[in-house]
C-alpha cells in the first residue's frame, strides 16, 4: 500500500528522496520503495525516517 503520508511529509520539508535517503542512511531506491508501498521498513528505519522529518510514527506509518 502506498505511503502517501511519507511523500507528503518529505515534500513539506522540501526534501528529495535522495536527501531523505542520505539523512537516514539508506539508498534512494529504498525510500522510493517505501513510498510506493513495495517495501515495509523495519521499526528502526521507521523511527529514523520520523526523526529526519520531525514527525511521529503515528503521522507516517499508522492507519
Amino acid at each position, binding site marked *: 500500500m502506498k505511503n502517501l503520508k511519507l511523500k507528503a511529509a518529505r515534500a513539506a520539508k522540501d526534501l528529495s528522496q535522495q536527501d531523505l535517503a542520505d539523512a537516514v542512511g*539508506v539508498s534512494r531506491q529504498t525510500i522510493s520503495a517505501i513510498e510506493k508501498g513495495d517495501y515495509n*521498513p523495519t521499526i528502526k528505519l521507521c523511527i529514523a525516517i520520523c526523526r529526519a522529518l520531525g514527525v511521529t510514527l503515528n503521522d507516517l506509518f499508522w492507519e
Partner: protein
Amino acid sequence: MSENRSAGLVLGMVVGVAAGLLLYAVYRRFARERGRSEEFDERQQLLRGYAFQHAFIAMLIYSLVYLFMELAFDLSVMEGGTALMIGTFLGLTVFAVESILRDAFFALNGRPVGYIILLVFVVASNAVSGIMRIKAGDVVVNGKLTSACINLVTAAAFLVVLIAILVHMRRGDDSE
C-alpha cells in the same frame, strides 16, 4: 590431455585467480582510503538474501538435471570439472542479475561505472581467449565439453551481468 597442456591450464588458472584477488585487494584498499565502504541498507540485504536463495536453487536444479541425464540416459556432455564450473557460474550469474534488477547489487556508495569498465575488460579478454581455444580445437574433445571452455563460460556469464546493468540503467530513474 598432454602434460604441457595440463601444466599450462593449471598455471593459467592460478595466475588468473591470483590476478583477480590482487585486483580485488587493491580495489578494497582504494575504496577504504576514499571512505567508501561496502554497505547495504536493510532492503538491499533482504533482497540479496532472496537472490542468494534463488542462485542456490538454480545450481541445485542444474546439478539434478545434469545428474539425471548422466544416470538415466548415460548422457555425459562435459567433463566433471567443467560441469561443476558451469554450475558455479550459473549461480553467480543468477545472484548478480537478480540483485542488479532489484537495486541490491551496488552498495550505498557504489558506482556502476567502475563495474562496467571492469566487466567490458573481462568479457573482451575472455572472449578473445575463448575464440582462440575454439580455433585450437580444445573446447570439444571426443564429443565432450572440456575445461578449455572456461574462457567462453566466463565471457558469457559476465556479458549477461553487463547486459543486466545496462538494461537496468536504461530503465531509468523511478524517483519522484
